[in-house]
């Protein structure tokens, strides 16, 4: 960790300890760091706790990949066929403006109370972000590159696979990073309110009912870490695959 990051992290921890030790905040609002660490330990070193983490992770990742597999090819097609996009723009703009949480009941009707509805909701939330980003990626492709290929009598398929898709990649990755965060949010909220036997949302909700604030914060820390590391993985992949971004 770089020194300035270490300083801000230390300051954050120090502020927390000071607030608790000076009794400036009641423990129900802000428990001690030790209590939170103990809760974290019991969560990560118990079968039930690990199951919660893995279930949340599974729903998030599956939802993300479903969104990716549907939204990216659809986005490329819509980007290429402007009229098609124009004809369904109202649908995209309408449904991406509606919070997926407002559609909980509909998802329950269609997919039931099990994992399917939670995964479908997360895929829905992430899918629109990926879709819009992909469409704009296709539109942002440099005209000169297409002209260059056209003058060499490249086929439309060659232009798509050798130029347009590469030009769209930075936009897809930006969408992936925003989308995965939304995925996680929707999965957690769904776990809290739809009901499930396992999941971090469910664990946080249960802890809050019995005023177990260390348990709530431990859950939040785990969620934050999951989001942080998934984002890091995508960022690493992005830097490796789209090495030219920022240089052109």
């Amino acid at each position, binding site marked *: 960790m770089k020194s300035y990051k270490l300083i801000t992290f230390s300051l954050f921890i120090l502020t927390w300890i000071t607030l608790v030790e000076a009794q400036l905040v009641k423990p129900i609002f802000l428990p001690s760091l030790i209590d939170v660490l103990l809760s974290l330990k019991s969560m990560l070193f118990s079968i039930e706790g690990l199951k919660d983490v893995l279930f949340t992770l599974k729903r998030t990742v599956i939802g993300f990949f479903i969104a990716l597999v549907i939204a990216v090819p659809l986005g490329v097609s819509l980007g290429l066929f402007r009229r098609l996009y124009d004809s369904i723009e109202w649908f995209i703009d309408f449904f991406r403006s509606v919070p997926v949480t407002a559609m909980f009941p509909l998802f329950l009707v269609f997919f039931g109370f099990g994992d399917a509805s939670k995964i479908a909701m997360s895929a829905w939330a992430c899918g629109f972000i990926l879709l819009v980003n992909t469409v704009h990626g296709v539109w942002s492709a440099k005209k000169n*590159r297409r*002209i*260059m290929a056209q003058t060499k009598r490249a086929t439309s398929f060659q232009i798509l696979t050798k130029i347009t898709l590469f030009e769209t990649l930075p936009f897809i990755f930006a969408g992936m990073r925003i989308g995965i965060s939304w995925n996680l949010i929707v999965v957690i909220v769904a776990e809290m309110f739809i009901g499930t036997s396992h999941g971090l949302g469910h664990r946080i909700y249960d802890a809050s009912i019995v005023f177990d604030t260390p348990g709530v914060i431990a859950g939040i820390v785990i969620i934050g870490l999951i989001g942080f590391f998934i984002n890091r993985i995508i960022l690493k992949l992005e830097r490796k695959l789209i090495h030219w971004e920022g240089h*052109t």
Partner: protein
Amino acid sequence: MQSVSVQRLCKSYKSKFVLKNVNLDIKKGELVVLFGANGCGKTTLLNIIAGIIQEDRGIIKIEGKEPNKEKIGYVFQNYRDSLLPWRTNLENIAFPLELTGITKNRRCKKAKVLIKEFDLPLPLNNYPYQSSGGEQQLVALLREVIAEPSLILMDEPFSALHQSSKEYLRVKLQEIWKKLGLTVLFVSHDITEALQLADRVLVMSSNPGRIVKQFNVNFQRPRRSKLVYSKQFSSLRKKILLYMEKDVL
């Protein structure tokens, strides 16, 4: 033998003529410079010849065929937007061969032979963004040359480069053009560049754009930068500029 023939070409946007009755002939192996002020329709003319824009009226033939039936090279002013930054310089140069289905080994070999033939110090395994502006434009030029096109269109390709890179590339272009017998239509608004490169300079007027005069340029080749200081060069330069001032602008 005529390589390019354009007759009575017209193009308008919103009922305003951008090009009106443009006539142009280029012989095989000739380097012709289209010279004119900014916005006179030079790029539109190139795009129509390349088959990218549809003309309203007129006939265009390249090697006797429709433009979209022939392989055409196109070098842009903005090399950054035309090179493929996800490919190395070597892969960029070999790109047109890939489109025709030539195997990777064969196309890389052909690209390397071309580079060696003209003794070009290019960082082949670097990506374009790791190369200088001059190197990138040279990669763009070689990419257009490698597929042996019937015609190469060049739209102010050196105008965004440093003076030293410009000088180097002008000399290299002449060398490549001469040795490979290329047919080139080069657009410029720099009279020095036009006279250094051209067999013929075609002067284009604005509003609407059309070719109003041609000047033959008979200086000995290869034409290097010191040619600019010769009496004949200055005299022809003056003649064209005076014509522009009097009859075109």
